């Protein structure tokens, strides 16, 4: 219940005022109250997560796979509300893959259920004695040991937990074999295939002996002015449905990006060597529609329904059913490894979902092996005598299994690119990664803002913070660096704000939905009048905070460079053949970027700014 102090306060909705701390070592559950200043400054979602991680770091060093690491699951104050695409939840931890701040967000409706259970965020530390799952029933928590779940797939586990708890409607977030085996890029899965994919959150769960988290919630979500929210939302839903691309988007979802990227010449092809894939038409959205798609899926509250459900009806992979693929998966298991058979991509997607592996990293690293075999950078013995030639479906599927089960060379790959490079330093130039996180499926050679976006993303080379490539291609290369840096910072400010609020960025980036509406949603929900630029300021603060966390792990300018390939290896084909990024130009934009962020020339946040994050709002 809200305290009397809070009732008189400014915030009148949006929160349950409860962060639930779970210590698996002591089997202790403690609700942690937070105050208005905390909610106003960090908002929710990854904002809460980063602050909790920061506080946790003050107590001593954190080893990502040690029991001391903290896993925060935090949906945000707008999650679950009647507004477009309110189904997002952030998973935040110190990443086992990169060793620094890591987060990843999941769609579906897991976070909505968590909020309906009366919980704003979960903060899990310690390690269960045996393999267990958490059962959060409307706020009541139990740790349930269950060794039978050992070795089970992510989706299989979801089914088993639902059966054990005798409720089909509950939400279950699970890990697969890869998470149990602490594969450093294991993911967390819910809703039969919605993943918190990047930075290895699944391995953190695995290291805590936590196979699943099951939630049931039935509480009303607190909204200060529901009629006002309803009014804003109805207009928003209408504007989305009236968008001329709405039907096309529902039809193809993110798979529509394949054609665009290939035509633009920025498709990751053969381990990011090329930007155009000859057989792109065989793996694009139309191919999916004509032979494989059997249904649409969407996350909670989302009219856009970008999810696809595909089924392979004949051939070798007959019977393969999967929620997907998304653009990234189709690229990384398609052009990036030379595969042109769509059903093989679906099979790889399904395997990764069931085993619990991040498809982007897996596709990226398998591409690296294929190049290493071709160029002789790795010997036959290194490669377990596998014939990892471009386009070999069998080898891709075999490697996914080997990674998840940590078998042979799979055991090396399972450690993520930083440790792969340690083992085989000769691979450094051909692995596309930043800060240890493998690059996602957009080339950055010809778009310096995209390179800057990857390089300065707080989790590593992921496109989620700044996806500026389309704008830069549209504006032309001659656009001044200043503007490009501004664009990156705007993305890195607005997109994390979505993660703080618990909503999806796609209505904005794909259908041009007005971002100012989110300020209206926030104001209606919380009763605190806020304009978009005021919310964005909080997001800028959060970027400083995650940078401050990373500084604790020694991150500075030296780590803010895009993958090496971008500077050294020109593409041979396509509209951008022969082009590479110039290092001097990159240094220049990086200087501009730091200056605009108010960071030092070495990319550091000033101490006096860092001190503002030490406000003793939350103590664990």
């Amino acid at each position, binding site marked *: 219940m809200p305290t009397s102090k809070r009732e008189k306060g400014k915030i009148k909705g949006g929160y349950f005022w409860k962060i639930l701390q779970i210590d698996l070592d002591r089997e202790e559950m403690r609700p942690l109250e937070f105050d208005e200043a905390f909610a106003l400054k960090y908002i929710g979602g990854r904002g809460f997560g980063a602050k909790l991680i920061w506080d946790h770091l003050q107590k001593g060093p954190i080893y990502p796979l040690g029991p001391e690491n903290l896993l925060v699951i935090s949906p945000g104050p707008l999650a*679950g*509300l*009647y507004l477009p695409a309110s189904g997002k939840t952030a998973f935040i931890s110190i990443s086992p893959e990169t060793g620094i701040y890591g987060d990843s967000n999941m769609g579906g*409706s897991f976070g*909505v259920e968590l909020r*309906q259970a009366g919980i704003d965020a979960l903060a899990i530390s310690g390690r269960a004695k045996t393999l267990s799952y958490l059962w959060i029933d409307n706020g009541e928590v139990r740790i349930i040991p269950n060794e039978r779940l050992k070795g089970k797939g992510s*989706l299989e586990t979801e089914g088993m937990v639902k059966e054990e708890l005798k409720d*089909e*409607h509950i939400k279950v977030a699970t890990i697969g074999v890869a998470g149990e085996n602490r594969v450093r890029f294991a993911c967390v899965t819910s*809703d*039969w*295939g919605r993943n918190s994919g990047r930075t290895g959150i699944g391995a953190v769960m695995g290291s805590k002996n936590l196979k699943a988290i099951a939630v049931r*919630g*039935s*509480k*009303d*979500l607190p*909204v200060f002015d*529901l009629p006002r*929210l*309803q009014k804003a939302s109805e207009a928003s*839903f209408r504007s*989305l*449905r009236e968008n001329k691309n709405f039907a096309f988007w*529902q039809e193809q979802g993110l798979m529509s990006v394949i054609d665009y990227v290939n035509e633009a010449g920025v498709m990751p092809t053969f381990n990011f060597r090329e930007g155009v894939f000859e057989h792109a038409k065989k793996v694009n959205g139309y191919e999916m529609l*004509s032979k494989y798609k*059997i*249904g*649409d*899926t*969407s*996350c*909670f*509250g*989302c*009219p*856009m*329904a970008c*999810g696809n*459900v595909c*089924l392979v009806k004949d051939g070798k992979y007959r019977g393969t*059913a999967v*929620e997907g693929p998304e653009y990234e998966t189709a690229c990384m298991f398609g052009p990036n490894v030379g595969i042109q058979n769509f059903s093989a991509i679906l099979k790889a997607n399904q395997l990764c979902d069931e085993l619990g592996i991040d498809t982007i990293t897996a596709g990226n690293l398998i591409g690296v092996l294929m190049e290493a075999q071709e160029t002789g950078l790795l010997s036959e013995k290194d490669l377990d005598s596998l014939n990892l030639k471009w386009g070999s479906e069998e080898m891709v599927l075999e490697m996914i299994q080997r990674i998840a089960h940590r078998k042979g060379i799979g055991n090396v790959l399972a450690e993520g690119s930083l440790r792969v490079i340690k083992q085989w330093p000769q691979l450094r130039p051909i692995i596309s990664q930043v800060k240890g996180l493998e690059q996602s499926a957009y080339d950055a050679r010809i778009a310096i803002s995209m390179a800057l976006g990857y390089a300065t993303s707080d989790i590593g080379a992921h496109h989620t913070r700044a996806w500026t490539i389309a704008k830069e291609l549209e504006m032309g290369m001659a656009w001044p660096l200043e503007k490009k840096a501004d664009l990156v910072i705007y993305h890195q400010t607005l997109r994390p704000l979505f993660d703080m609020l618990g909503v999806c960025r796609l209505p904005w980036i794909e259908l041009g939905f007005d971002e100012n509406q989110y300020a209206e949603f926030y104001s209606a929900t919380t009763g605190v009048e806020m304009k978009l630029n005021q919310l964005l300021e909080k997001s800028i603060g959060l970027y400083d905070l995650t940078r401050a966390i990373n500084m604790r792990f020694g991150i500075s300018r030296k780590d803010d460079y895009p993958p090496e390939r971008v500077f050294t290896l020109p593409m041979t084909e396509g509209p951008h053949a022969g082009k590479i990024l110039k290092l001097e130009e990159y240094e220049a934009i990086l200087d501009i970027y730091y200056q605009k962020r108010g960071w030092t020339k070495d990319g550091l946040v000033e101490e006096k700014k860092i001190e503002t994050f030490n406000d003793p709002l939350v103590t664990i």
Partner: protein
Amino acid sequence: MSWKLAVVPERCSGCKICELVCSIQRFGVNNPKKSAIRVMVIYPHPIIRMPIVCRQCKVAKCMENCPTGAIVTKNGIYDIDGEKCISCQQCVISCPFGAIFLHEEIDTPFKCNLCNGNPRCVEACPKNALLFLPEHVLGQPQRMASVLKYVHMKEVEYVEKGERKVLRYADIEKGKGED
């Protein structure tokens, strides 16, 4: 004329916007667990998402089984009279579709009352998976589909280079677009 809320499960994407608008309309709260329509998701065999909602059966099991006469009907729309209902939950169990719901904070079961003739979920569904139709229209799409299916099966005879051949309509479609 009686109107029906019809569901096209193949179109449903499982977004639950119907549940949201229902809970707001009915109880004035943002709580999908307080909605009189519920999206079921089955995975992986088969993969289907399907909203469950009252069909306003003309021979209503809920009404038959209610011991206190709390299921009332007006213009073909059934609802639960909170005054008469003793919350024995017979209606919940006897509904063949499971379209009557319970919530721990609400004393009596609740079901769809078609928003008194203007169901909000229908206009809110972004996939047009919910339709509000006059009773006599129901079944027309299926009738249409079965006619089309019959035509596709039918064979036509023709002569090519003096040779008698048989062609199925279905094969004509299949050949389209292939090299």
